[in-house]
């Protein structure tokens, strides 16, 4: 199928959302009028308060994700180091993987009592096991496939990492990163709502919802989705395409 035809189908799907939204608006009391929402959008975007809340959430996600990625990478390499470490850390990873984000958020509130570090910690805690597992699988398959190659050609450790391990592990790293990133945005909203945050998207959204400001609820949702999609498709996938440009 041609690229243009694909684009046409994608565009059609997006365009159909607008009438669907409008029909939903006509038939319910809680879906705002799309025309009204878009009319308020410029004013909403011009409001510095909007960007303050978005900035706070963005910062929490970025810091938490960075911490989670670092911890995950560290854990993956440590797990490769010895069997005991592998098993021990395996239990930690499982425990983190199995903790619902709502419970992690509640515990973080209890421990950090509304401190900014709590939100960062929740995001890091929830994303770290995904990085650890994804990367560990990558390292394992790299070990199996490439160790012999490196030995035969007597590559030094650095060149082995740079030219053999890294390119091999990169796809795993990216797919783990994509999962962790998608999850981070999901978790932060839960954490902000459960943690009774005073700023951030979750707080603003809950405020609008409590006062039944439905237009504002829709505006927040739109802006949030836009930012998530820009981060994923504008930043992460671009980076991925750049790293894998040799694949042709």
């Amino acid at each position, binding site marked *: 199928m041609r690229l243009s*035809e694909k684009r046409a189908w994608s565009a059609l799907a997006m365009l159909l959302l607008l009438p669907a939204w409008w029909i939903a608006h006509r038939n319910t009391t809680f879906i705002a009028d799309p025309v009204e929402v878009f009319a308020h959008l410029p004013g909403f975007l011009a409001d510095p308060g909007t960007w303050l809340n978005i900035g706070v959430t963005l910062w929490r996600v970025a810091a938490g994700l960075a911490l989670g990625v670092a911890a995950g990478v560290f854990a993956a390499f440590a797990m490769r180091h010895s069997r005991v470490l592998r*098993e021990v850390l395996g239990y*930690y990873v499982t425990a983190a993987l199995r903790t619902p984000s709502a419970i992690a958020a509640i515990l973080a509130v209890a421990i950090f009592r509304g401190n900014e570090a709590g939100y960062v910690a929740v995001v890091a805690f929830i994303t770290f096991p995904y990085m650890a597992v994804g990367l560990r699988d990558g390292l394992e398959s790299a070990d199996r496939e490439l160790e012999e190659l490196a030995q035969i050609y007597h590559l030094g450790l650095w060149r082995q990492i740079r030219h053999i391990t890294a390119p091999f592990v990169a796809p795993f790293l990216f797919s783990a990163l994509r999962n962790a990133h998608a999850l981070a945005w999901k978790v932060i909203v839960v954490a902000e709502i459960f943690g009774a945050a005073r700023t951030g998207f979750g707080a603003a959204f809950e405020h609008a919802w409590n006062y039944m400001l439905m237009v504002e609820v829709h505006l927040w949702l739109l802006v949030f989705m836009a930012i998530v999609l820009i981060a994923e498709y504008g930043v992460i996938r671009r980076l991925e395409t750049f790293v894998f440009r040799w694949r042709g």
Partner: protein
Amino acid sequence: MTAKTLPLARLRLLPPGGPGAGLPGLVIALGSMLVIWQLGAIAVRPWIPTPADTAVEIWANLQSPEFWLDFRLTLARVLGAFALATLAGAAVGILIGLSERAEAFFQPLLALALAVPDPVYIIFAILAFGTGEVAGFVALTVAVTPFVSNIVRSSVRARDTGLDEMARIYRLPRAAALRHQLLPQLVPALLTAARFSFALSWKLAVVVEAIGQPDGIGASIFESFRLLRMREVAATAIIFILAMQLLERGVLGRVEKRLLGWRG
């Protein structure tokens, strides 16, 4: 392309007792977790309950009929949403995996659906259906389905197209080809998707119940938290997590063994 076909399907949830897992690993892991917990309880008293107190609370919970009532309610909600989300997600995943046109159409919608925070689904479901059972069920299903679709779609795309050609050349009817040729190839991915869907369903159920239901494990945890009874929060959460873990490994593990017997 590899990078794009790798994602969630590759993410096998880590088996804690995988092949060759030994007792020392378990002992060190649990021991160190308890030590960290105890130290945390001392440092952040009274916000973190001690392991000993929590153990007593767990025991009390296990004997309380109200706990089991909540537990059964939540389990029923989880299983309902899990079943529907897995079926619907698999169907959409197979459809978009097989047809480029369907993929072009549904892919942006899936991306959008994944960008909506879970509490938003819950809130809108409550507005639409009231605070009854339907709202939670719908919110859970809608939140989980796109994940399942993504996993299944990648595996449909990564299928052996040589077998498609074989099926066409031997003129297998569409239904027979789907059933005997395509579906068995997808079994491993469908199982991964089912695991993922189950794990996501029960984790999200906690959020759904906390926000939108008067009863169930999630509501009970949130209620305890509101009253600052952290011991109850910890005890209920631990039992629930362990029970779901056991259920997943027991049931899905057995299904997996039966369905993949031909490997070998």
